[in-house]
Structures are given as C-alpha cells and as structure tokens.
C-alpha cells in the first residue's frame, strides 16, 4: 500500500553490474518506500534475477557503477550476512538443498542470529519449536518439514513455502521474492501468496520479481516495473501487468525506444 511521506527503504541509482565480464545491469533506477509492494517484470535475460542477487550480495556479480542505499546506508558496505541481519531478505528462485542439516536446526540458527543482531532474546529449542509451528500454520505446512534436511527432496512448492516461512520468521524490512511463483501449482500459489499478503505491513516493503502476471492476481502490487536489457524502462500501476499479460513485452521496448529517440 502506498503511504504518503513513507520512509525510503531502497534507493537504487544508475546501477551497473557484470557477470564474468558481461554487462547485465546498465543503469537501473528504483525507489521503494515502506509499505509498498513493487513488481519487477520483464522477459528472460532482462536482468531481473541478477538484480535480486546483487541486492543480496552474491559474489558472482561485480558492481561496476551506481549506488544502492538501504535504509539510509550504503548496501555495498555490508557483507551478505550483514545485509540479511539488517533486514534484506531474498526468497530464492531455486532454494538450494543442504543435505544432513536438519531444517528445524537451520531455522533456529538463522532466527537466533538475526534476533541477536537486533538486540532481542534468542529462543531455546523448545520455545523455538512453538514459535515456528505457529508460523508454519500461516503457510499450511506440515510439522514434519522441521525434521527433514533443508530443502532436500522438497517439491518445488515445498521449497517456496520454506522460503516464505523464513521470511515470516525473520521479519525483514525488504523482502525480494525472486520468481516465487515458478513451479507452483494453483493451490500452492494461493497459499504462498496468502502468506506474503499477511506479512506485508506499513513498515516493510516487498519486491516481487516475476515473469508472469498470474502471481499478481494474488499479491496486488502498488507499482509494476518493466525491465529490459538491464534497466527499468517503464513503470505503472497494477493495470500495467494486465496489459503486459495481453500484449507481451515487445511493445514496451518499442515505445521506450521511440521516447528515447524523441528525447535525443
């Protein structure tokens, strides 16, 4: 929801980045305020996922220009784990499997690490068990998730739910959901979207990175951005997503080039 005079959570200016020497982001601008839900859409290869990984601090990408301020501080001054503790959360498109590491232990470690950073009390295993089971209800997860290895043998939907469960636990300031709808059947999509909606509030911001409009039927964005060739070329309201759904992405690029040409 858009709140007047809401504080800026994320301010991206002219962000340029490369992977293995190939330029992926070419001057990306984006401003996200508290309470807002943004959707970043765009064709494959437009740089959407790269952008989310750069915000989280993945070492494969090199930032070559521009700036990112998160809650008033330079995001690039923080190591990936420091960003997470400060409230940047990335729900992965492909959550990785960690064989042998029990989900409940992993979840408790991450929860306690972040809590400690925020000057709050850690939870012992019993307290945490109560806490996490309550959160799991939100996502209609069965308690046996806790006893399995992290993401190992999880279906696509289970992995995504496990991601949103962590979002619920860690209470981030900025949640980036990278293609969270991919690989979800309609029921799972509804559950995950419902979870995200309940987590959205006036103090946090959500950035949905998605290829398709269908997620946006469930999580209604305040802004829709179209990304192409490493930058945002069009911004609109939720109706833009519907237009993209019916017309595809090509017209946005054509329109953008025409405007750019006129300005030049």
């Amino acid at each position, binding site marked *: 929801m858009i709140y007047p005079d809401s504080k800026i959570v994320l301010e991206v200016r002219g962000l340029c980045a490369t992977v293995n020497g190939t330029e992926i982001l070419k001057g990306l601008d984006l401003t996200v305020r508290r309470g807002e839900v943004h959707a970043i859409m765009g064709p494959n290869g437009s740089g959407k996922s790269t952008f989310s990984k750069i915000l989280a601090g993945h070492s494969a990408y090199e930032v070559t220009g521009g700036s990112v301020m998160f809650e008033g501080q330079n995001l690039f001054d923080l190591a990936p784990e420091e960003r*997470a503790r400060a409230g940047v959360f990335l729900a992965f498109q492909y959550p990785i499997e960690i064989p042998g590491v029990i989900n409940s232990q992993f979840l408790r470690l*991450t929860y306690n690490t972040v809590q400690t950073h925020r000057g709050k009390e850690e939870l012992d295993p019993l307290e945490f068990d109560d806490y996490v089971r309550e959160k799991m209800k939100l996502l209609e997860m069965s308690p046996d998730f806790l006893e399995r290895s992290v993401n190992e043998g999880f279906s696509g939907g289970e992995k995504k739910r496990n991601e949103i469960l*962590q979002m619920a636990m860690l209470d981030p300031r900025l949640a980036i959901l990278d293609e969270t709808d991919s690989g979800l059947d309609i029921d799972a999509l509804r559950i995950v979207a419902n979870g995200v909606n309940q987590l959205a509030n006036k103090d946090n911001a959500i950035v949905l990175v998605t290829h398709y409009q269908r997620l946006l039927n469930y999580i209604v964005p305040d802004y829709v951005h179209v990304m192409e060739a490493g930058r945002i070329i069009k911004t609109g309201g939720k109706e833009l997503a519907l237009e993209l759904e019916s017309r595809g992405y090509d017209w946005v690029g054509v329109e953008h080039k025409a405007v750019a040409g006129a300005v030049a």
Partner: protein
Amino acid sequence: MSATLQNLVNQPYKHGFVTSIESDVAPKGLNADTIRMISTKKKEPEWLLEFRLKSYEAWLKMEEPIWPNVHYPKIDFQAISYYSAPKQKPKLKSMDEVDPELLRTFEKLGVPLHERMALAGVAVDVIFDSVSVATTYKDKLAEVGIIFCSMSEAVLDHPELVQKYLGTVIPPSDNFYAALNSAVFTDGSFCYIPKGVQCPMDLSTYFRINTEESGQFERTLIVAEEGASVSYLEGCTAPAFSSNQLHAAVVELVALDNADIKYSTVQNWYAGDEKGVGGIYNFVTKRGLAKGVNSRISWTQVETGSAITWKYPSCVLLGDNSVGEFYSVAVTNHYQQADTGTKMIHIGKNTRSTIVSKGISAGHSNNSYRGLVKVAPGATGARNYSQCDSMLVGQNSGAHTFPYIQVANNSSQIEHEASTSKIGEDQLFYFAQRGIDAEAAVSMIINGFCKDVFQQLPMEFAVEATALLSFKLEGSVG
C-alpha cells in the same frame, strides 16, 4: 575457493606447544640391544623380552607396505629414538601430586583433568610420552574387579593376563608396523573387565607425544570377559613439531561370550603446517576379536590430525551372532593424507557388521576410504551394511573409496552405499542470506554430514568432536 573458506580451514594448530618436563631418551637406532635396554628399563619378565625379540626378527624380514594411497619420503628407522620416559615418574594417588607443568599442558589442551574427573566421572589414565604418570579412579574400578592401568604396570602386576592375550588378536607378524610395535612398545593401557561386570564409567586415556624425534609405540589391550561391557575413550593431541614423527600403535580388543566393547577415538595429532611441513605419521593397527557368541565390538573414530594416517580398526567376528561396527569421520586439510577404513571378517554364523564412513577433504589433502568385508564359507546368514560418504571442500582436494568385498557363503547379504558431495558457494550464500556467516555455515553442514557417526560417541566426546571439526575446517570454505 573463496577467501573466507580458505581462512576457515587454515587455522594454526591450537595445541602446539612443548612442555619442558625432562625426558630420559634412548640413543637413536634399533637393534636387539635397544630392545633389551627397553625391557630392562621396564623390569620386564623374560617371556616379554622374548616376545619383543621374536617380533624384531620378524620385522627385519618384512617390508614397509606401499599399497596405501599416501606418499611420503622413506623413513629411516635407525634415525628414531625408541624410548623416552619423563625422568620424574612418581606413583600418584591424586591429581595434587601431578607435576603442575603437566597439569598446565592438559589445561592448554582444554582438558582440565581434575575437572573432567570431578564433573564427568571419568577415570583417566594419563600417558605422557611413553610412561603413565597418573592413574585415577583405580580403586573404585578395583571394587568391581576391573583392572585399568598402564601396560607396564599390567605386565608387572598381572603378567598371566597379559601373556594370555597379548598378540593373540594382532600377531607380531601381522604387518610391518605391528611387528615394529611388538618389538619396541613402551607403554599403553591395559583394561580387563571380569565376567558379568558392566564398567560403571567410560574409561579414558589421553595420549600425548612430547619429545621431538621420539617415535611413540603404544600398546593397548582390552579384554571383556563373558557378559562384561566397557566403553573406552582415546583422545590424542600432540605439540607442533617441525619434523615428522612416527607413531605406530597397536590396539587389541577381545570380547568373550555376550561381551561388549565400545572403543571411541578422537585423533588430533599434529598434522603439519599449511604447506605440509612436519606432522605425525600415524600407522596404527587396531583390531577387535569378537570371540564369543553374541559379542559385540564397536569402533568409533574421529580422525582429524596427523600428516599421514594409515589405520583400519577391524573386527574379526568369530563367535556366532557376533556384531562388528565401524563409525568413522576422517577430516583432512592442507597436505594431509589419510588412508583409513576397516575390515569386517565374518567367520561365525549370523554375524552382522555395519560400516559408516564419512570423509571430508579440504585444501590439497587426500582422503581415502579402504575397507574389506569378508565372509568366510562357514558364516551362514552373515550380513553387512556399508555406507561411505565423501565431502569435498574447495577445488584441490581428493576423495577416494576402495571397497573390497569377498564373499564365500551364498546366504550372506552385503549392502554398499556411497556418495560424494561438495560444500558449494551457493550453499554458503544461502546461509549468508539468512544471516549466518561462512564459519557457522560450514560447521553446520559438516556436523550434519557427520551426524550418524557423532551419535555414536559418548556425549562429552561428541561435543569435543564437533568443536574440533569446526576448528579444523575453519578457513577452508568460503
């Protein structure tokens, strides 16, 4: 491999220091006279001197094994001193009488002995270099008839027991290093659990190499009579020396009818520096004889140290329905080399064995599992389950598996599972994205990987092993 990962694995050896207790060291070199000198110094009976001399004769005719997947310069056995004893070796009844310098050593190792004993109720037979200097809780154990003492004492006080069992599981001619040990062993532990007695506490011995250039040859013998049971813990740490040291121990276990022996080891000998200079050569022969019906021998080992490890704790399942177990975690880093595993020899009917081996290789290290499952023609209904998992950390380490299966009875059932995995950057990134730094992440992944083995360790040992592993791998992942 990223810098974080490197730093995590590459921490200096924590236990690297030399205590300055004066030692009584034999001149370098080995011949029959050296052996006579050792035997005389230890006031041994004639039969033991003969045992040593025969072993020495056998050793002279043997050759160093070259089949292990490890590489090192040729050892000059004449350049080693075969005996070293602290000059001051009083018989002590309480820890108060122990040399304070020695106590400080144990404190540096993070094992305050008095605390361990008081809190954990563990009787610790302290081996410092080659001679026992303190044996505790002996009286309490004596009440139930358990003998737990140094091998030297056992030879003098219980010669009939030692003579009856010494060399019966591992004969001197078994292999090159066992023969060498049989000729020159200086001390070790002896443990005898009489018929029907369940040992009321975990028995624990701390071995420690303390004199530079002195080979250490421990000899341990544990006998559990009919219906007896015991859990034995062996922990090893050693000071950081720049030159290699040879360590060739022999451990023999004998379990009679319905007896149960559980032997747990945490091995953290000096592994050499990050360039592979120095470190201990650990050539160990360990074997248990499940002699009686329904007997059980269980080996659990956490191998983190030594420049070279060559070690195959084995079970000979002679009694019908006897059980053999081997649970192992072997971690190698830098230029360490480990060739370790087990042998399960099924001879009795309905004998069962379980092998769970976890190898972790980091840095430029090489980690091999080598195991033999052998089913003799008479071992009807024998069963074995083996699981060998390897984990690679970084780009330059190696993991190898050499399973040997020899089955001569068609009613047996053998299962073998193996896997190889890798700690990847993407796993660490996932942890980082949840606020967890690389060090904690590696620790969690490794502990998850080793869980099946750690579960087998006595509680306090499990905690120690977990900490040790994290510490050994700090700096290697990132």
